């Protein structure tokens, strides 16, 4: 162990993008003390983003493990995979595992990610709907979609995960129905006009839409595998499989109420430090700075998880060496980019109607764009955008699509 390090290890809870980014940053920053990782998953880390591509047959299973050539294992002294975390004691600096073991820590990083939830979806006596997060979820869904041709699938949820699950169904030539509680898809990020066009493009590609609807009952037939799904408008339809993509919640059941400041996630400062001493958080569990609102909130994106993990790792390394951390997390803005087959949708910033804002709606070259400006003295400031495009056969986008990163940066810079 190097000079200046305490004898207890740094413990990382979780083994996804935020955790691995933190581990790499810890070692890159010179921390050569003991490092323990606890995860309820297998020891080989996968990318949840890739699971829908695997389910749809776009990539082989091996490709779901993007860190396979990074040799993360060599950076870890004690790897505890397939272990459940019971609780953490922030006073005693201990993690208690479900198997009864206690792990002391010098610094703790909570990077346990999130899990799917399905609020209000009726439980069936015997049928377990699909979700799409882990490799096990992906294996099960993939098996169901390739079981026979034209599997009838109900996808409940119209945001990012729902649409990627829908794409996987289309890739497998399933008969897909998309169910949404709201009147439009991508409610949180798409302007209604853009959402409407997006919906039409989905219908053109064979998707059945059931918007502004909910499921009131699911019954599995006794003699065949299909489910009878009752909708709130009285319709009853048969489906072979149901996929729930209605949202996620952070995996924080092991954090005792009151022990760390929490809302939906764990509140962190600019160096990913929580309110508890020596406890850090990053990724889908962390409420970090959203510069567009000035509020702390979870923005569950891969990009954010990586940057937050790196920030936490270098801050932990600095504190372990007795220095003050110097690389703060710069914050983020809500942003999204999603493909559903040949449809591309990109969004960043705020699309909400507020006083002093003007909307520039454009339709050109088969694209639909909405740019939102806030009226300011001298010049109008871009605060949000939607771009919806159908990717042409030659792959060459309109220049507006190539510029999505520049627009996102312009919005981000206007707040910092």
């Amino acid at each position, binding site marked *: 162990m190097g000079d200046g390090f305490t004898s207890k290890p740094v413990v990382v809870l979780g083994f996804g993008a935020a955790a691995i980014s933190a581990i790499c940053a810890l070692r890159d920053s010179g921390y050569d003390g003991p490092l323990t990782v606890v995860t309820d998953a297998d020891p080989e880390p996968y990318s949840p983003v890739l699971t829908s591509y695997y389910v749809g047959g776009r*990539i082989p299973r091996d490709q779901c493990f993007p860190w396979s050539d990074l040799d993360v294992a060599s950076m870890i002294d004690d790897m505890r995979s397939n272990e459940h975390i019971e609780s953490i004691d922030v006073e005693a600096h201990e993690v208690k595992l479900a198997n009864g073991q206690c792990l002391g820590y010098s610094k703790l990083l909570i990077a346990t990610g999130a899990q799917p939830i399905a609020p209000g979806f009726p439980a069936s006596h015997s049928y377990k709907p699909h979700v799409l997060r882990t490799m096990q979820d992906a294996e099960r869904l993939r098996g169901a979609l390739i079981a026979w041709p034209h599997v009838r699938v109900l996808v409940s949820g119209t945001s990012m995960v729902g649409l990627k699950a829908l794409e996987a169904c289309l890739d497998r030539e399933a008969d897909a129905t998309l169910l949404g509680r709201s009147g439009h898809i991508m409610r949180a990020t798409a302007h209604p006009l853009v959402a409407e066009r997006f919906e039409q493009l989905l219908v053109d590609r064979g998707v059945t839409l059931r918007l502004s609807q909910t499921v009131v009952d699911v019954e599995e037939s006794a003699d065949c595998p299909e489910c009878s799904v009752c909708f709130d408008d009285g319709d009853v339809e048969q489906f072979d499989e149901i996929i729930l993509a209605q949202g996620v919640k952070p995996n924080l059941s092991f954090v005792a109420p009151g022990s760390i400041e929490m809302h939906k996630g764990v509140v962190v400062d600019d160096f990913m430090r929580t309110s508890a001493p020596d406890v850090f958080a990053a990724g889908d569990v962390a409420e970090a700075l959203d510069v567009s609102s000035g509020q702390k909130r979870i923005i569950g994106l891969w990009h954010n998880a990586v940057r937050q993990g790196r920030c936490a790792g270098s801050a932990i390394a600095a504190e372990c060496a007795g220095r003050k951390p110097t690389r703060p997390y710069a914050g983020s803005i809500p942003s999204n980019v999603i493909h559903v087959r040949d449809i591309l949708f990109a969004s960043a910033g705020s699309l909400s109607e507020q006083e002093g804002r003007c909307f520039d709606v454009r339709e050109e070259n088969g694209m639909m764009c909405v740019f939102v400006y806030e009226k300011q003295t001298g010049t109008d400031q871009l605060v949000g955008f939607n771009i919806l495009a159908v*990717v042409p056969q030659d792959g060459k986008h309109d220049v507006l699509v190539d510029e999505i990163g520049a627009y996102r940066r312009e919005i981000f810079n206007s707040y910092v």
Partner: protein
Amino acid sequence: MTKKTLCFDAQKCVGCYACAVACMDQNDIDVVGDGLMYRHVSHVEEENADEVRIVHVSIACLHCEAAECLDACPSGALRRDIASGAVIVRRELCIGCHACAMACPFGIPRFGRDGTMQKCDACYARTRFGYEPACAEICPTGALSYADVNEAAGSKLSRFGKTLA
């Protein structure tokens, strides 16, 4: 071993496109077909009090030290080449998700017919054998050069100092 980097001096650029053509040649890019250019030349009007002049800018991937595209890529398709410092694309791993495009503030990532991302790799196949990147080698005015990182930074500081003086 000294670390080298691609440098661009806008004051020397005449917008001749030799760099873009050399890039296409090096990378076998057929822009008449479905190839995508990795290097672009832009002409920007700069208006001062009593004159308007054209500034030419040759731009490709900047291989940023804190490359946002690297952080955003969920598939491991983007990696830093340790020897050259270049950000390279392993197209066989790219899923075409456009996360890199959303992250890059310079509009560099482009997507080809197969849906995968393509961009400049700083000619790391040349530089690892001691050759300059094709664009720097061909540049007739020295606007693009492949120079020692510290020398390049020193030269920039010196020019900045002269401007201040």
